[in-house]
């Protein structure tokens, strides 16, 4: 890899807002391109696909389950939660939209890799929507858990393209976590190094909210 290939500044400023399923695939390919040089993207993506052995699909499906859970959480909150301040519901809308985009992108990526996307789980958030306070509390738990889940799984990802996509999503999860924490008067970054969680630890943590 020669040094002139390292940066392709044009790629980083591409607008990814309102990203669609197919453009996400492109986007993660472009993210790889910004690292390896645009010329390398085509063969690189093909190579990444060829190397798939189910491992990355499993991780993507695990992430998809979490994103489904988060999307459902904010969607229900916006319908049911009592006493949300306008700033809180504005944030909840933005977060719901982000999570829904993550669901769409992960689904498309899994399909592209020849895998079968998991279905949305049944959810039950208990009394979380009784007040703004209880909503924010569970929101923080879900977002912090999401960060730890991605960070825990990411090093096992084989495809650099999938890793770039996961990194791009986990940064957004961390931003969500910090925003929710700030609303609760908590420190946005409780630790200098975010914790990692193994898949089984994450599944255990979210079990109370998954019905099926």
């Amino acid at each position: 890899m020669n040094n002139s290939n390292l940066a392709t500044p044009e790629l980083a400023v591409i607008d990814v807002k309102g990203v669609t399923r197919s453009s996400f695939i492109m986007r993660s390919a472009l993210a790889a391109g910004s690292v390896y040089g645009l010329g390398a993207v085509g063969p690189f993506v093909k190579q990444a696909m060829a190397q798939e052995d189910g491992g990355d699909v499993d991780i993507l499906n695990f992430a998809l389950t979490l994103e489904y859970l988060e999307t459902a959480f904010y969607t229900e909150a916006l319908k049911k939660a009592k006493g949300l301040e306008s700033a809180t519901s504005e944030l909840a809308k933005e977060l719901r939209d982000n999570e829904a985009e993550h669901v769409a992108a992960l689904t498309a990526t899994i399909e592209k890799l020849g895998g079968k996307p998991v279905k949305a789980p049944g959810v039950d958030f208990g009394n979380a929507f009784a007040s703004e306070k209880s909503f924010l509390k569970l929101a923080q738990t879900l977002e912090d858990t999401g960060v730890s889940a991605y960070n825990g799984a990411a090093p096992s990802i084989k495809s650099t393209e999938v890793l770039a996509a996961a990194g791009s999503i986990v940064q957004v999860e961390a931003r969500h976590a910090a925003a929710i924490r700030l609303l609760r008067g908590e420190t946005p970054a409780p630790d200098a190094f975010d914790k990692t969680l193994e898949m089984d630890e994450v599944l255990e943590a979210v079990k109370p909210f998954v019905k099926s």
Partner: protein
Amino acid sequence: MVEQSTQQNHDKAALEELSQDTASRKRFLKMVGGAGATGALAIFVAACGNDEETDTGATGDTDTGMGAEKKASKGDLEILNYALTLEFIEADFYAAVIDSGEVTDKKIAELAKSIGENEQEHVDALTATIEQLGGKPAAKPSTTFDAVLQGGPKMILATAATVENLGAAAYLGQAGRIKNKDVLAAALSIHTVEARHAAALNTLVGKTVVPDGAFAKPASMKEVLPQIKPFLAS
């Protein structure tokens, strides 16, 4: 490994020092040391030729691949030193902000202090990691923040937000280039903390917490370095 025994003594001393450090730093180093069966800090011992961990596939952990790769590649050390340089600048920035007394809002000053402490922990951990992987930590750059500090609290916060968003993008830009899975895990655990800082500061300056939308954009070294240049004293 010509200097093996000297190196080992040095590393033993460093390991002892590390083991007495704060919980979060220990966790970070544990992460760098291999999340699987390797155990805390074993990678560092292994990296400098200790017999205990020289068997191939000693960890039996195919996920991390650490059995085959005990030493950081040249590329990983370069990335770690790049990260270290960014963290040096960030830590210096918050120290300068606090020293200046320009931020009088108590809550904001507290946030600046806590972010600054995070950055210092990143500096310490990255330095230790580079040393343990047999590299030479980059020298602390001379910094200048006069222009920002003279701009008052508003400019200070805006600059902090810019720097943190840049930092998060910089880590994201390197993630795919890191070869050693444990170094990757450690970088990711810093990456999301930079993202948390960025989101908090964005909120304070009235910006959206997710300026790139649902998918954060990476930044390459080539993009990042010109943006930190104004803070480097010549």
